[in-house]
């Protein structure tokens, strides 16, 4: 832990050496961007879109569910029907309150003998309390092993080819949202074909002591260190939700447009199922829409959305898209709002256009 009370990942020294600008993110001292020739949000973003970028996401939480009732517990806690997952498959899911509001959005990995649920760093304690409170009657061990794992994300069109040089695993045979347990750079690792950038790539879970070596191997091979700033612009272009912005305790996954991660009919049911079924039948009060700013200005998180006469919602995420060269945003608006919307940018209404998601889609989806 640093003197400022923030936790550090196993890659702290590597970040400092790479000239990282470090910020407090969910209690961790994390790189928001790097300095130097390849540094800066736009350059890091471009490196991921065009080559390969390397993220330290070791702050994410790794929670294992073990025991006779592990699957029953996970089924109860998440919106996806995890019984449909095969061993070696991962699924994106929401964790809900009874009200339908979202506790967290997670990745569920089905392994041979347990489930790994990867949670957002900022929600880790809240999630654990929710998990334990709601499974007290089950024969399940819920183990927070976050401190025992580092996580690197190598993303971009060159990512898979680059990583292949350092592993015996046949990466081409691992489909999107599948994973294998093998070795990278001679160290044991879980290799997961997942990511949060809209590009092909892998997320590599490994022991903290092994992380600096892999970081060096991959950066020596040409991967560009990329920080949280680029991660945010990349995920927004790819239309992916960020908990705390687009999803929260009082926003349901259906409202936030991640209904694909909600299996409303499943056995056993999940916490929040009744509320979400109701929203599905009656229609949710709000919907997440994708906006392109047509006027001048940037729509940012928290800015008001109007239909010209009334306030109809709020921007949940917004930025200037480095790839598209225009301002893009996600906004949570009343379901009945029309299509003729404006965002108030410093007291000035700026016209916006509703568009489809994602804002950016890579040309080749790789092996899916």
């Amino acid at each position, binding site marked *: 832990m640093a003197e400022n009370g923030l936790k550090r990942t196993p890659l702290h020294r590597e970040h400092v050496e790479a000239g990282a600008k470090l910020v407090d993110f969910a209690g961790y001292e994390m790189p928001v961007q790097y300095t130097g020739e390849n540094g800066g*949000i*736009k350059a890091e973003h471009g490196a991921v879109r065009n080559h390969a970028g390397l993220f330290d996401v070791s702050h994410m939480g790794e929670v294992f569910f073990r025991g006779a009732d592990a699957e029953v517990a996970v089924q109860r806690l998440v919106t996806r029907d995890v019984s449909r997952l095969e061993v070696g498959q991962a699924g994106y899911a929401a964790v809900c309150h009874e009200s339908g509001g979202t506790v967290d959005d997670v990745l569920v990995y089905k392994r041979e003998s347990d489930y790994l649920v990867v949670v957002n760093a900022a929600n880790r304690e809240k999630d654990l309390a929710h998990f334990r409170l709601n499974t007290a009657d089950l024969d399940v061990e819920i183990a927070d092993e976050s401190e025992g794992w580092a996580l690197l994300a190598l993303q971009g069109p060159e990512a898979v080819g680059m990583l292949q040089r350092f592993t015996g695993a046949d990466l081409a045979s691992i489909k999107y949202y599948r994973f294998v347990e093998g070795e990278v750079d001679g160290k044991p690792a879980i290799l997961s074909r997942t990511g949060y950038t809209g590009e092909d790539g892998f997320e590599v879970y490994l022991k903290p002591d092994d992380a600096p070596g892999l970081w060096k191997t991959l950066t020596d091979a040409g991967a560009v260190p990329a920080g949280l*700033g680029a991660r*945010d*612009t990349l995920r927004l272009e790819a239309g992916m939700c960020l908990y705390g912005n687009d999803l929260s305790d009082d926003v349901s996954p259906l409202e936030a447009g991640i209904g694909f991660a909600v299996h409303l009919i499943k056995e056993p049911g999940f916490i929040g199922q009744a509320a979400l079924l109701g929203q599905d039948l009656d229609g949710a009060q709000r919907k997440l829409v994708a906006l392109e700013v047509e006027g*001048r200005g*940037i729509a940012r998180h928290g800015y008001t959305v109007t239909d010209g006469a009334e306030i109809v919602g709020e921007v949940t995420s917004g*930025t*200037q898209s480095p790839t598209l060269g225009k301002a893009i945003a996600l906004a949570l608006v009343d379901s009945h709002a029309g299509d003729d919307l404006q965002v108030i940018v410093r007291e000035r209404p700026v016209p916006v256009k509703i568009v489809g998601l994602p804002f950016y889609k890579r040309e080749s989806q790789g092996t899916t």
Partner: protein
Amino acid sequence: MSLPEDLKYAKTHEWTRIEDETATVGITEHAAEELGDVVYVEMPEVGATFEAGESFGTVESVKAVSDLYAPVSGEVVEFNKELEDAPEKINEDPYSAGWIVKLKTSDPGDDLLSASEYKEATDTDG
């Protein structure tokens, strides 16, 4: 960090070059570096008047919005139209091509900082 000696500086990280009755205004290299890649500049209308210390526009990077404050009182006579299409000039050349606005002024800017005073102030900022 570059800090031309012939400019005056505001604690709010604007610089100004006062020639005759015209004050050219931009933001310092330090401010541009702190903001990161500038992607948008909101500039005032020609003819608008501002008191020293008053916000006259904003500069936005990918991640942040930052107000621009007039280092001297004056009337806007010109803004840098090139920034509409190339706001990155603020990062690339903050003291020349990245200028933002010109004010007609009779304010000598006596309260502003010299290059060395500004450097001291920003060093203290950390």
